[in-house]
């Protein structure tokens, strides 16, 4: 009886997972198929199966349209996202480490404020940030998007947990006795122990900044500074005026998720470890 029950629950679990996988993958499949069609076949043929394979032509059209502005947008996105995720992870790691390992007055309060920050959606901050950047005359610059993207309270929260779980206090004591300074200890010992956790923070941050949209929309007017999300959205709103843009938006959307997939494939090994570490303790 027991084994039959478990077979049943296993099947049920597989079924639920299968349904969800189908639900999540179907739009991606549609996107892949749509990106391979030329304009004429896009409306006329089965949306979920291939027609003549025009993917290469579509990509070439996208990359050459308006002097390759799409590549510029991809580059911008990588600069905003990669830079912000790296700096943000470092900041979050140092912050979380300090909150976890040092005793100082106001520590609890600081940590609670950071936790409060987790609850504030980034969209609610976009307009105040715009007014602040307007005040210092820095809107419509690279920094207007880059600087706010570095801040990641959720990362600090995660780093605090990871530091508590993976860096033993005895080790820090030993390092201090051996004469290592606090900064040196952080970079040579603690950050390595926290590494799987930092990968998680990096990935979360990377995805959040890559998909961030409202902040660049409000801050930027110069097309050459747009990240790829805003650029594609801009094209999409012009479809009524210039219908040929629709095909470019589709191919562009497909290409724009590629870096996310690459980041996940490269880092998922660390990520799984990292999630496990946090969950057990």
């Amino acid at each position: 009886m027991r084994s039959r029950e478990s077979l049943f629950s296993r099947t049920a679990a597989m079924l639920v997972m299968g349904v969800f996988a189908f639900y999540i993958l179907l739009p991606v499949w549609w996107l892949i198929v749509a990106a391979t069609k030329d304009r004429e076949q896009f409306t006329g043929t089965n949306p979920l199966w291939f027609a003549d394979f025009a993917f290469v032509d579509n990509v070439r059209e996208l990359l050459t349209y308006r002097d390759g502005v799409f590549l510029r947008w991809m580059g911008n996105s990588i600069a905003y996202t990669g830079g912000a995720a790296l700096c943000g992870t470092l900041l979050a790691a140092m912050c979380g480490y300090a909150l976890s390992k040092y005793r100082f007055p106001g520590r609890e309060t600081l940590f609670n404020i950071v936790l409060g920050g987790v609850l504030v959606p980034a969209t609610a901050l976009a307009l105040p940030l715009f007014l602040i950047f307007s005040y210092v005359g820095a809107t419509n610059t690279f920094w207007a998007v880059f600087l706010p993207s570095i801040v990641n309270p959720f990362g600090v929260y995660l780093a605090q947990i990871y530091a508590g779980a993976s860096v033993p206090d005895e080790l820090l004591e030993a390092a201090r006795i051996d004469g290592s300074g606090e900064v040196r200890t952080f970079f040579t010992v603690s950050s390595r122990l926290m590494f799987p956790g930092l990968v998680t923070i990096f990935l979360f941050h990377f995805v959040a900044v890559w998909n961030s949209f409202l902040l660049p929309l409000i801050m930027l007017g110069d097309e050459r500074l747009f990240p790829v999300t805003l650029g594609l959205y801009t094209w999409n709103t012009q479809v009524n005026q210039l219908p040929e843009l629709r095909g470019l938006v589709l191919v562009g959307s497909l290409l724009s998720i590629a870096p996310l997939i690459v980041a996940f494939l490269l880092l998922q090994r660390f990520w799984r470890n990292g999630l496990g570490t946090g969950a057990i303790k």
Partner: protein
Amino acid sequence: MRRIAVVVMTSVLALAGCSSGGDDAASGDTAASACAPSTGKVDLTFTSWIPGIEEVVKVWNDKNPNIQVKVQTGPNGNGGTYQNFFNQLKAGNAPDLGQIEYDTLPSFRVQDGLANLAACDIVTGAKDKFVDWTWNQVTFGGQDTVYGIPQDAGPMALFYRADLFKQNGIAVPTTWAEYAAAAEKVKAAGGYITNFSQSDVNQFAGLAWQAGGRWFGNDGSQWTVDFSDAKTTQVADYWQDLISRKLVSTVPPWTTEWDNAYNTGQAWTWVSAVWGANSIATGAPTTKGKWAVAPMPQWSAGDKSAGNWGGSSTAVFKSSKHPYEAAQFALWLNSSDEALTLLNQKANLYPATKSGATLPALTTGVDFYGGQKIYEVFAEASTQVSPDFVWGPLMTKTYADAADGFKAAVSGQGTLAEALKTAQSSTIQAMKSQAIPVKG
């Protein structure tokens, strides 16, 4: 811990609340500001979402070393650029010039964001270059007010499948009564005469505009709002009848499903603006050569009137330090042959000037329409658009409310006329809550 989080949240909300409060509506201030040329080199910024606008502006910059224009871009107006304009006006860093559609100009006017160009003699002197009704769209009918330079227009006509009408022996309708009669024959032949758009309320406004409906009025001290005048109700009841009898399809517009309906010959006509020519050509490529364009059907046989759907102006924001130079650039952009030709090539803009109709690109036959000189039909329609249709100050809200009602109506709940009535009261309500003086 939880308490602190709440404090943080509320202070953020309060901050967001502060910045979204509207300025008081100013409707008395009509005196034109001074408009004197600046000395020395002038740098202007111009925000527009026209595809390829940089290349048009480059032509100006090459010729005018002392008035250099820098282009900023973004999504279309309702996609975010209008909200950005409002934010920038608040923050004091709005561009000198911005693209604003006719139906949104009043929103910026009630927020007191626009420079009145009536003091610029170059602007008032250019009045006769523009088609009369487009000029009224930027003056709101006033004598000493000019809040923008008309850029493009969307005179409406009837796109129809010439081949299908001919094969089935159906005459091309010239009146709305004939159009309804043709709809029955088209249904019998297995198609729909058109697709009624549940979300393009501005298209419906164009149909009401043609019929003589007037949605808004402004006597200088307060607004009047009326979406249920006799003419508008006539139009609403007409389309409601076609929807109820299932003589029109109701797929959501601007989707692949909608393109497909035109591409496969399910939908036979489209009452649309001049820019629609390109929408059909791209959305329904397999029907090349089978379409033709005729004037809009009329409410009484022999009438000659047309509606308008879309169109933009180039406005100068009040914060601009160089309104004279900005106006100079806007006039060049929207009335010189070289700029209009480029705008037409890059973005299919149909000029708002009288002479624009004679641009070479607009007087030749179009292959997709079997070689018909379709733009001649639109040029004539443009002269038949009534000049006294006024937009309200909260059109985004009006459109959204009416579209909600339209969506319900096409699925069988309520009618178009009821949807308009609801939208009317919610528009009045919203205007009152923003302290915009309104009757009713």
